[in-house]
Every structure is written in C-alpha cells, then in structure tokens.
C-alpha cells in the first residue's frame, strides 16, 4: 500500500485575477520505504507539494491519503496530531530552539505526543546516538556546528518514530562535506526502512535518492528512478 497517495490534487492561492495555481491536478504515490527526491526550480510547485505531503497545508481540490488515512479534510488540530505521529521534519534552517539543549530540543515532539516524561530522555538520547551526537546531549545550538545542529534536527524528526521523514533542502545551508554526512544519515535511515522525501534543487543530492520527481509549473514533469549505477555498485 502506498504511504503517500495524492489523487488529482490542486492548490490555488488568492482569488480572481490574482489567482495562482501552485499545483494543477497532481496525482502521485510514494510507497513505504522509498527514498525519493522532489526537484524543480523555484515556483515549480515543489514547496507546495512538500507542504501538502507534510500536512502543513490542505489542498484546494483532490484527495490525499497518508498511511491510509484521508487527510484532506481534518481540522488544524487533527493535522497537528498527524504531523506529530506520522511525519518528521528536517528544514534547511534547522529551527532548533536556542534556549534548549540538544536533548531538550529532541524531546520536544514527545511533549506534544504526550509521551510520559520518564521515557522521553532515554528515547531522545537514543535518537541522538543514532545521528552520532551521543556526546553532545547538553550543548545548546549555539555551541554546535551547522552539521551538528542539522543532526540534532534529524534526531528530533525521528524521535517519535514517524513513518515519513520530510526534508526541505536539508543540505542547503551546509558545505559539501557536511552535506554528505547528513545524506549518509538519511541513507542509513532509509536502510532501516524509513520512508524519506527530500526537496532539493541540487541534482547531485537528488542523485543519491532512489527516485526523482521533478515539478514544473505546478505539474509533475518527470518521475523516474535514478540512474542505476549506485545500485550496481552496492550490488
């Protein structure tokens, strides 16, 4: 069964002559366990698609089922709940809370998931160890490098064990070497069975995914598996 199932999705902003059709009748499915990149130039609709997939926004028309649950109608609070339980977010700007330590930042989604306080810390530490930051638990964001901050953000995204990890330009603010370390973490999460969807404009980054969906003018321009050389190498 498809984890992400978009059927005839349209998204329109504004009214009358000022209407902008950000997405026009897009249908798209992504299966559980896929590692896929969404690419396109700015204004292509890739960000809108990302917001819809991430349940941050609702489509004007069409139907969206996430993990079998229709999510095109629920209220803002119901969407918040779905985001909390099913989706982990990684952003270009990290968005860590400066007043909190790394482990406190990672614990944040569990606060909203109403996870008992006694379990939070151990789960957060586990997530931080998974991204290689087991020794940076009590550091505040301003005491961490960019790459370390992004790894804290990844730990935060996976701590509630979501089905889907959504990354919006996760390497956009990082140098190429650090970027690769982040992508390595994604690859290892992918191997563990996590579904990853990454928005990027960097073709080299997109190449590391299994599938590239390219948007243009609010529609899917192409949807193809990446060149098989990577897979061959692994094989």
């Amino acid at each position: 069964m498809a984890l992400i199932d978009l059927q005839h999705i349209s998204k329109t902003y504004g009214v009358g002559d000022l209407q902008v059709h950000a997405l026009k009748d897009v249908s798209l499915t992504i299966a559980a366990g896929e590692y896929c990149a969404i690419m396109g130039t700015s204004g292509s609709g890739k960000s809108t698609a990302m917001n819809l997939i991430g349940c941050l926004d609702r489509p004007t028309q069409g139907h969206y089922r996430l993990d079998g649950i229709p999510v095109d109608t629920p209220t803002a609070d119901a969407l918040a709940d779905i985001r909390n339980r099913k989706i982990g977010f990684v952003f270009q700007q990290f968005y860590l809370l400066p007043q909190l330590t790394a482990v406190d930042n990672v614990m944040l989604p569990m606060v909203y998931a109403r996870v008992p306080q006694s379990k939070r810390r151990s789960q957060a530490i586990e997530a931080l160890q998974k991204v290689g930051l087991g020794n940076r638990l009590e550091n505040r964001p301003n005491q961490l490098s960019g790459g370390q901050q992004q790894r804290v953000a990844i730990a935060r995204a996976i701590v509630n064990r979501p089905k889907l990890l959504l990354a919006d330009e996760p390497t956009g603010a990082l140098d190429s070497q650090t970027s690769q370390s982040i992508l390595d973490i994604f690859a290892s999460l992918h191997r563990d069975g996590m579904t990853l969807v990454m928005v990027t404009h960097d073709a080299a980054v997109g190449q590391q995914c299994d599938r590239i969906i390219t948007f243009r003018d609010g529609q899917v321009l192409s949807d193809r598996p990446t060149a098989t050389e990577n897979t061959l190498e692994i094989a």
Partner: protein
Amino acid sequence: MAYNLVENATMAMKTLGANKLRSGLTMLGIVIGNASVIAMVAAGQAAQDYVTRQFESLGTNVLFITPGDAQRGPDAGVRRADTLTLADAEAVAAEVLAVGAVSPEKSQRLRVTRVAAETQANVLGTTPEYLTVRQVTMAQGRFLSPVDAQLSVAVLGSETAKTLFGERNPIDQSIRIDNVRFTVVGVVTSRGSSFGQNLDETVYIPIEVMVDRLTGQEVGKTSPTVQTIAVSAQSATSASAAHYQITNLLRLRHGLLTQEDDFTVQSQQDLLDTADSITSILVLVLGFTAGISLLVGGIGIMNIMLVSVTERTQEIGLRKAIGAKGSDISAQFTIEAIILAIIGGLIGTSLGLMSIVILTLATPLSAGVSVSAIAVSFTVSGSTGLIFGLLPARRAAQLDPIVALRS
C-alpha cells in the same frame, strides 16, 4: 491537565530564563504595580486607624459645641466664630440635666517667657471642669480650681514645662505670658498630639483671667466668646439626650426661631463618622491610583508578549510543524505571561512589605500588613498576566505554520 501545566511551566521558565533582561523589564511594571497597591493601601489604612484613634482619645461620651453651622455645606469654612460665649457654657452647665461637666475653651498662641527662656505655646483659657471632660491627669501639683477664677495661675503642659524649667521644679515659680505674670500651680502629664497639634505645648489658665488680662473684652459682647464648649454627658446613654437639650437651650438663648443653628453640637461618634468617610475615600483613591499602575504593568506584559510572539514566529512555526496544537501554543504563551506576573507579584509584594516597614519606622502611622491587600494584588497581578497574556497567546496560536516557518 496538571501534568501539562507543570510541563508548560518548566518550559516557560527555561524560555524566560534564556532572556533575563527582557523578562525582568516585563516584570518591572507588575513589580511596581504590586508594590504600590500594597504600600498605598497600607498607608491609607494606617492613616484611617490613626484618625480613628485620635477621635477615640477624645472620650466616648463627650460632645463638642462649636460656633457656626458645620452642616451648611460649601461655605461652612466661613462660619461665624463669635456665636458661643462663656455665658452659654454656664447656662448649659446649669440647665441641661443630661450634662455632667462643661468645659469652655478659648485658646490663643502666645509668647511664654521665664527669665531667659522663651517659647511659643497654646494658651488655653478654661475652667476646672476641663480636667474631667478631657480626662487630663496631673504629673505635678494641681489643675485649675474654682478658687483660682480671678487669680493669675497657670498649669503647664509637659513640654512647655520642660522648655521653661528644664529639670527644675516649676511649682510656685512664675512665668510671663505676654508679659503678664502667672504663678505655676501644676504640670499635666504628656498627652501627645492631636490632629497635628502638640498638646504638650500648652499653658492652661482660668478663662476669666485670660479675658481680663490677655485678650480683653470683645466689643459688643456681654460675655467673652469661646471657641469650643466640651461637654461630657452624664453617661454614654444620655449623650443623645444631652445633644438634643443643648441644641434647644442654645437656640432659645440665641433667639433663633426660624433661622438655622448658629452653632454645632457634635458627638465623638459624629466626628468619627465624618473622619471615617473622608479617610475611606482616601484609601479608595490611593488604592485606585495604585490599581492604575498595576493596569499599566499588565499592558506592559501584553506589549512585550506581543513583541515576543513576533520575534518567536519561527519557534511557533516549528512547534506547530512537529505537532503542537493551537491550544498548546496559547497555553505556552499564557503561562509565560502568568509566570512573569506571579514572579513580578512576589517581588512587588516584598517591596511593598518593605515600604510598610519603612513607613512604620519613619512616621507616626503604624501601618499593618493587610492580608487582604496582598491577596487582592496577587490575584490581580495573576489575572493581569492571564488577561494580557491571552491576546498575544491567541495571536501565536493562530499563526499558520508555513507562513511562520518561512518568515
């Protein structure tokens, strides 16, 4: 819910602690508001107590007859001062059955000298009954007596005695009041002060002597005028009868048929009630003024919280993206505001209490700590935080996560 509250409070403390300067400034308004509510209310109540005690010290069954009509309203200040005479006092003493003792009083500030020592004192012409009516006790010698009526004798207040004689015994010594010789026959015990007047800077002399030797007869008067006739009723229960009978007698004596009274009879209770109504307004005005500063403090909280919501838009967006509901966000900001208000309230309350201690040490007012004032100002500051935190919190809760993250 309680579980969430602790959670939110912990989070709020971390956030507020991370920005100490701003948190401090936000609290300042509430601190000042709380401190002033507590201090002002305490000061007002202390003033009220003080005035009440002053009136109570006058004695419970004492009536005061003063010239002019105090009830007449705006022009009461320009009342005629010469409508009461010594003869009126004598008539009241002789004819009103409900009356115990009558003490006519005529006073003037005069220069009192002894050899090289000199002082200003309130020279009070009165009769021996003063001792009974005003409940004065003697420290030395005796008070005025009926046989003194035409004699130049004087009784000194404790402070005047000290100024003129120091540690020496003043009895049978002579002093001069406006260059008229008087012989000291007694010293009264210290009476403290009443309505800002130091009662111990007084020289008591027979009223007839005062008129004959010091002030002189007024033109067109057959009997000397007096400023006050203090009357003690036979008992507390006969005070109202005395009040009524005195009024009738004086109207008759003054030939008043249809006109208003040209004198006022007031009991200690009347004076107390009047003073109470004035001081209650004082307390109210002080409390109200302080309340305004509390309100301003609350608006300060709202202001900073609104700024804070704007500044932390990304934080709000992130929290929403990872699963915070609108209610979570609004709880977070509301609790931050309430915590600010409560901590500010605590600091303000301690400052207020400190100022009460200072007030008690520095003034004759003995300010009590009013538990109700603390409770009220605490409740008010807590609810100020709640009320003024709600608008920013609502604004934060309604932010669209996408817009918030892109800002």
